[in-house]
């Protein structure tokens, strides 16, 4: 009697999408309500909370999050609705009738205070010994409601053991207030499905399958749950103590590479508005902290484009000309969360993943080989740190296969938040730093490498190069200012077709050993797609499995995190669609300000192929250092 359709979240808790009526005069499109005796008109279906926000009335929230479907479980946002016996959770009450709302009556204030008191009574730990001190939503609520003592007591011992089994995410459930944001993030937003409520009544807690440690279940380390946790129940596995030790050790040569997204967001940790780029200030700060060299990950992002692009050309050539069996579409592999997701959920597609390493790991391999050779430093004494917007990068650098330099290619993955903490600890106020440059021998990178930080960026960077390679035209002549707009923005899935046309260019030198000419691409249409957030990735993968439109694509960019790296699990908290938009604007603005905006024009990359990777892209040496392999992990939890 039931349809095949499966229900992940209860229908009533699916996000309410309220569309503003196109014609405001349309009868029934809006509804008149009263909030605190003020008459207002709102679109039908608006929640009480949204209505209050719209009109500047503050209602406290905790389980509510803009990115997630409604829950209505913490009850802190309750308000009085005339005619109803009980208080209503404003975040979960869609307005469908003309109602009168009161947001601050004695009953409401008392109930909210009681709820906060109850949460505090079960919340273990003290604020001053907490990583989220001064950025905690529970703490904020307690302050807002003037809590000066524990009305209902306070737990004296942690209730649960801390789970620090994972390289990326640490779970301390004694601090959990059961808002279920992590559950909704993991199951609904990301469709990874690691966390759920377990047991019931007072025993209710968030946990994994059979309460196993996080490292033993199918966690992809994306850290999106950390970004949405209101307290410190979820946090990243912080290596900064070890990094300080390395910095303080005179025998160690400590270098750091910085990814594009942290610099677009780290300012938020210092009170700057979202979207304030801090690239050059950060360079100076890093030097002052004591890092010996500061490199730009964008350089290896450019390198990734060359390697991954070449790999695509090889695959296409094999498929179209040599009629060989190859796996297409090719999938990007820069996002370690996505890679692990595929290894677990779609292991049969690991051959579609580009074998090119992520920029972080390429850089790691080069630092302990090329850089070590050039500077004469013993790679054993090099400590290689990567500041990333990402918690999965911590796992990635610990993958056992990532030691092609003969050493652990990248020693530590550091998140934006952790770096901000180190900078503060060093007594530095980042916004006041003078501007500084990146260090040689890698120097400055292109704008193409920079936009890796935003969803669609890898694809845009790749297309800029591929179009120039194949057609011989300038990217600027094909796309206005070389900006490929259809690949930008926050639509979950983006699709684009690029007709090659009948005029092709000459094969550039670095590819000459691979293809004789481009004639075989005459009249072809390159089909590409972009997905961000693993839930969207799942949609594409299921479509490919079913032989749908995306199975005809040639190249697909996947990012595990919503918004791409700029919305990564290591970025400053909070995260909202608005904040992610601002960060993206900062990245695209910086790209447009640069002279070199195409990976293959990056002079340092060109030199790298001339001096070090002499067999060219996808050659023997690059295969050894810049490419990797993957593991069919599957879904079974042992």
């Amino acid at each position, binding site marked *: 009697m*039931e349809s095949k*359709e*499966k229900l992940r979240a209860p229908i009533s808790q699916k996000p309410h999408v309220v569309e503003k009526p196109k014609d405001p005069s349309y009868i029934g499109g809006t509804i008149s309500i009263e909030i605190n005796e003020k008459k207002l008109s709102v679109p039908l279906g608006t929640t009480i909370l949204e209505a209050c926000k719209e009109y500047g009335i503050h209602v406290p929230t905790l389980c509510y999050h803009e990115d997630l479907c409604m829950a209505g479980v913490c009850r802190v946002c309750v308000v009085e609705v005339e005619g109803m016996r009980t208080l209503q959770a404003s975040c979960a009450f869609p307005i469908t009738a003309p109602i009168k709302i009161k947001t601050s009556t004695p009953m409401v204030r008392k109930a909210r205070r009681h709820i906060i008191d109850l949460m505090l009574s079960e919340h273990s730990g003290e604020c001053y010994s907490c990583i989220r001190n001064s950025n905690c939503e529970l703490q904020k609520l307690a302050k807002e409601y003037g809590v000066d003592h524990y009305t209902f007591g306070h737990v004296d011992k942690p209730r649960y053991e801390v789970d620090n089994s994972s390289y990326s995410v640490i779970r301390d459930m004694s601090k959990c207030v059961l808002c279920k944001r992590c559950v909704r993030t993991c199951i609904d937003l990301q469709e990874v*499905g690691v966390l*759920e*409520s377990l*047991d019931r009544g007072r025993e209710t807690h968030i*946990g994994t399958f059979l309460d196993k440690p996080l490292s033993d279940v199918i966690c992809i380390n994306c850290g999106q749950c950390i970004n949405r946790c209101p307290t410190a129940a979820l946090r990243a596995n912080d290596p900064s103590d070890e990094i300080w030790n390395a910095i303080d050790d005179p025998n160690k040569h400590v270098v750091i590479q910085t990814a594009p997204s942290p610099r677009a967001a780290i300012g938020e940790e210092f009170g700057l508005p979202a979207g304030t780029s801090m690239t050059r200030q950060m360079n100076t700060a890093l030097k002052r902290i004591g890092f010996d060299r500061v490199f730009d990950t964008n350089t290896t992002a450019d390198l990734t484009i060359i390697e991954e692009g070449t790999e695509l050309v090889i695959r296409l050539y094999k498929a179209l000309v040599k009629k060989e069996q190859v796996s297409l579409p090719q999938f990007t592999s820069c996002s370690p969360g996505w890679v692990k997701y595929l290894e677990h959920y779609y292991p049969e597609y690991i051959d579609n993943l580009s074998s090119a390493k992520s920029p972080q790991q390429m850089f790691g391999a080069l630092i302990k080989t090329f850089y070590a050779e050039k500077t004469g430093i013993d790679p054993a004494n090099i400590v290689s740190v990567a500041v990333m917007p990402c918690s999965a990068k911590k796992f990635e650098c610990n993958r056992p296969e990532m030691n092609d330099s003969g050493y652990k290619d990248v020693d530590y993955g550091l998140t934006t938040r952790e770096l901000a903490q180190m900078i503060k600890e060093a007594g530095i106020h980042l916004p006041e730093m003078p501007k500084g440059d990146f260090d040689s021998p890698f120097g400055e990178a292109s704008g193409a490498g920079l936009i890796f930080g935003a969803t669609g960026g890898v694809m845009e960077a790749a297309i800029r190069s591929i179009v120039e390679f194949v057609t011989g035209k300038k990217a600027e002549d094909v796309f206005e200012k070389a900006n490929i707009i259809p690949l930008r923005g926050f639509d979950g899935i983006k699709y684009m077709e690029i007709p090659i046309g009948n005029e092709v260019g000459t094969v550039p030198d670095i590819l000459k050993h691979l293809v004789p000419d481009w004639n075989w691409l005459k009249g072809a249409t390159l089909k590409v797609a972009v997905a961000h957030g693993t839930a969207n990735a799942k949609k594409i993968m299921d479509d490919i499995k079913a032989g749908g439109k995306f199975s005809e694509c040639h190249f697909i960019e996947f990012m595990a995190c919503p918004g791409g790296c700029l919305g990564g699990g290591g970025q400053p908290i909070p995260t909202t669609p608005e904040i992610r938009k601002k960060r993206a604007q900062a990245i695209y603005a910086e790209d447009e300000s640069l002279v070199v905006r195409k990976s293959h024009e990056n002079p340092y990359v060109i030199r790298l192929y001339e001096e070090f990777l002499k067999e060219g892209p996808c050659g023997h040496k690059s295969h050894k250092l810049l490419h990797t392999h993957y593991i069919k992990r599957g879904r079974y939890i042992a």
Partner: protein
Amino acid sequence: MLVLEKNEMTKEIEQLVNKYGFSRSSLLPILQDIQRKHKAVPDFAQQEVARLLDIHPVEVYSVVSFYSFFNTKQKGKNLVRLCQTITCDLAGKKSVARALEREIGIKFGETTKDNKITLEYVNCLGMCDQGPALLVNERVYSKVTPEKAVQILSEIK
């Protein structure tokens, strides 16, 4: 679990999915059948149910841990549950409980060494007019006295 047992379990769950339908709403009936047969919902079974219904294993475990009639670890062959609600309590639950514990030598919440009996408390069995009530597997006994309770236990295998 041995491979053979696993295959057997997979087959069994496939049959259950066919019987109740490929839908999340079949989850409880499927788990109930597994529980009835195996006196537990084993780890592997949870993963297989998840796979066949296309949901996540943790979602199955979440449901299993929510309902008190499911358990993941094997219990005794016979489940003996004594109602702990107030009317049964007033009618002499405590003396029945003590008699049971004395007689079979385990406490409530435990299982006998030979795996024959598990003793548990349960909330209201709906026999408040005839308390104390005892639920042995699916069968309900009412107006149980210490002596009668012990006799009931001696009759089960």
